[in-house]
């Protein structure tokens, strides 16, 4: 087998999507469907953020498509007045792939949950990321199955007691950011549902990124996993838990920036008091670094018990997208075909034919 060099178009994520001059508001993106999530569900906060963020993109509303799988979060498309498809469990990235490849003029979003994306749909997720499809994936992670009423999910903590694990879960969870980085994702971010500013900033950059963007959104299920992220929202030690990433800045956090991230003897990263290690020892965050090693090490600082949680944009690098590459081949082949004068009749007839002529009687 031979390999050929393929062109690498450099574009923004929405460059081919038509824009509008009309002023848009959040309510322009609000459909007539009644929102039916449980009271207190984190999905409301995310929906509000997305509705208020979309006008900022200035895209024609009809050129935005939300595709979802199955689960509470996957009802999302019904509540946005764009085009949308509520598909089947785990398959949204696959469906979005066909749409994104054939329709470069669309802004394609996938809404999925921890069960949908990481359990039944894990295969499609990693391949969409690997291919770098030009889609933006919002992964709502509440660490529980909500719609099926409270079983543990592939992000649930070890030992979690649920309806299906009365003696505690013995299942080792995924770290979605680590998984995405391992799957060669070119854009990986994380935000808390309640952090509107942080979430909007990650969404903004994810939408602008050409290629697959994975945004993990921590989100509460008030019914089956209530308060699961409360330690990141309230209390005196929130600042000691959250590690916000700022591109180009040393990674430092705490009420007074008293903690920092430094290289560990293990080869990874660790959290140390700045007073002990000195400012010069702090690692600087570089989301655009092609080598994903540091981004991966940062992802490992997030503990299951939320002692530390890294938020922001872990990685944002340019790499050719599958859909651009596939379309470039079709375009090139079409131009060649037109130059050669290819047509359907010539294709069907082919090169090796023989003629059966009318017999004299038939002609007579």
């Amino acid at each position, binding site marked *: 087998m031979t390999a050929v060099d393929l062109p690498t178009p450099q574009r923004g994520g929405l460059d081919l999507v038509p824009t509008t001059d009309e002023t848009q508001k959040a309510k322009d993106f609000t459909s007539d469907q009644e929102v039916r999530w449980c009271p207190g569900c984190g999905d409301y906060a995310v929906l509000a953020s997305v509705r208020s963020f979309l006008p900022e993109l200035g895209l024609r509303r009809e050129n935005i498509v939300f595709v979802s799988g199955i689960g509470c979060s996957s009802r999302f498309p019904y509540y946005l007045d764009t085009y949308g498809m509520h598909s089947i469990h785990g398959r949204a990235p696959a469906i979005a792939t066909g749409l994104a*490849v054939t329709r470069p003029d669309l802004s394609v979003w996938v809404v999925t949950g921890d069960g949908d994306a990481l359990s039944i749909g894990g295969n499609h997720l990693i391949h969409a990321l690997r291919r770098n499809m030009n889609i933006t994936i919002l992964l709502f992670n509440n660490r529980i199955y909500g719609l099926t009423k409270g079983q543990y999910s592939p992000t649930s903590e070890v030992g979690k007691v649920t309806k299906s694990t009365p003696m505690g879960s013995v299942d080792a969870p995924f770290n979605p950011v680590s998984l995405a980085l391992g799957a060669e994702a070119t854009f990986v971010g994380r935000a808390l549902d309640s952090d509107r500013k942080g979430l909007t900033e990650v969404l903004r950059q994810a939408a602008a990124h050409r290629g697959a963007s994975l945004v993990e959104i921590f989100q509460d299920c008030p019914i089956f996993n209530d308060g699961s992220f409360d330690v990141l929202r309230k209390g005196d030690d929130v600042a000691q838990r959250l590690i916000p990433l700022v591109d180009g800045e040393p990674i430092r956090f705490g009420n007074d920036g008293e903690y920092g991230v430094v290289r560990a003897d293990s080869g990874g990263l660790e959290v140390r008091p700045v007073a002990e290690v000195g400012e010069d020892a702090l690692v600087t965050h570089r989301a655009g670094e092609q080598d994903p090693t540091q981004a991966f090490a940062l992802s490992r600082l997030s503990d299951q018990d939320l002692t530390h949680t890294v938020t922001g944009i872990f990685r944002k690098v340019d790499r050719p997208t599958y859909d651009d590459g596939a379309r470039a081949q079709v375009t090139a*082949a079409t131009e060649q075909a037109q130059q050669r004068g290819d047509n359907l009749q010539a*294709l069907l007839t082919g090169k090796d034919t023989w003629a059966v002529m009318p017999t004299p009687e038939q002609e007579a």
Partner: protein
Amino acid sequence: MSTDTEVGADLPDHLVAHGEIRQTEVRQTHRVVIRFAGDSGDGMQLTGDRFTSEAAAFGNDLATLPNFPAEIRAPAGTLPGVSSFQLHFADYDILTPGDRPDVLVAMNPAALKSNLSDLPHGGVLIVNTDEFTKRNLTKVGYEANPLEDDSLAPYQVHRVAMATITRTALEPTGMSKKDAERAKNMFALGLLSWMYHRGTEGTEAFLREKFAKKPELAEANILAFRTGWNYGETTESFAVTYEVAPAALPTGTYRQITGNLALAYGVVAAGQLSKLPVFLGTYPITPASDVLHELSKHKGMGVTTFQAEDEIAGIGAALGASFGGALGVTSTSGPGVALKSETIGLAVALELPLLILDVQRGGPSTGLPTKTEQADLLQAMYGRNGEAPVPIIAPASPSECFAAAIEAAKIAITYRTPVFLLSDGAIANGSEPWNVPDVNDLPDLSVEFATAPNSPDGTEFWPYLRDDDTLARPWAVPGTAGLEHRIGGLEKADGRGSISYDPDNHDRMVRLRQAKIDGITVADVEVDDPDGAAEVLVLGWGSTFGPIGAACRRVRAAGMSVAQAHVRSMNPLPGNLGDVLHRYRRVVVPEMNLGQFAMMLRARYLVDVRSYTKVAGLPFGAEELAGVLTDAVKGDLPA
């Protein structure tokens, strides 16, 4: 080659009287069946393909049956490693690749052992003696060398040291012994080409093109090919050669085509005729992969191919493309259909066009990947949760796959529904002449996308407001301003299309979806009942068309009456089918499964059809079916 009786049995009446064979050095014959059999690595498929191309170029009618193991290279010289290619060519319209070969070319003991029982006594057997070593004989359980005892006495045996002769001929090229011997299949091809008065130019041109980057290999193969030809001409062991005149087929321009190629061309044509971009989302699977291979070559004709991470993603992407206004297509075989079922159900609920090309193979599970079977019918009919009707089109021969793909696309586009196309391994890999259609005669498949609000008050877009005639819903693609809407797998309100859990609405929607499929316009089934006196009807579907037709010719040649009909739309069934079935005293349904179509017919029409079934991985034989039909005519068919 065939005796008068064998010729006459399969011949249309007008040819029987002229079926005499002249006892001269060059004999005229109406039809010949040749089987090339060897090890998987011996190049038997290539050899058969080449001979087929020569027969096609000469203007014979033809039908082929490749038969090969699922392993790419099974252990050399073993019985499981035998690969064969059977070609039937004739000077009249034939229907099958032939039950039994007139000529068997056996390249090694394994090929001889596994194929000899199919060769009728008196048949021609050409054996490559070089492979008949003690070790190779032992490997396949021969205690004595069959070339040295009298076990081959009933046949006309030609013992040819093909490897040795090829090696010797290629010595001047300086190739290694091993490489030179690999060209022995071209020696065999040359010998057969001489026997049947085939030209050499086509094969030589083919070899030069195939080995364009390695001209020395091309010349070595051509030398081996000519050596085979000259061997026939100069040795005295072959005293007779045969001529098979071109066939008197309907006028037109013909080419040779396999089912998978015709299927791919049909998909390309459907894209052109509908002016929709074609998107194939698929995953490699035997025996459907050639559809992907072929379509991936036609990007210049508006075809995008996507090799997905699995079967589910393949159809998912195709459905996503359909949502965006493309003609979504997925290609697969039975195990892949099982994985795609949930997405097919979603497509039923979404009511979007989608083609599902199922090239059936032996099942259950992995089954017999390279062998043919028709056992996916009920999977295609009913293999989904809920009431999820899907139209099914079944081509009857390789060349019919072209029109079948266009028909399937037409239904999908017109009725906004997923459509199954059921091919099978025999159709997919078998080939026959194809009367190339004039593209101006092909149907117009153009689509009208929704562009404006359609609600009764004219202010909203209702995605499930149906067309009165077809019951199809509007196809509004993203990018159309003012028609923003959400669809999905949850039940939708009739008309408006919002989520609805209303019991009456669900009942109505289930019935509407069924009524839409039941209302698809389908051509009536045609009955071939030449003397109008038949009391027995044989009804087939899919690739059994050829063997059933050949069997009917035999039964009629023996003076009995039998009617034949073939169904090409399995869902919905032709409107006149019930009347046709009730018109005959006995209906026989041969199928390569355990009676799936028979079950559908019994349930639908309350007709006591008789199943004749076989699931041996190979098509029915004409002789075998003729026996079944004869029993049916005589009233001896067991229940």
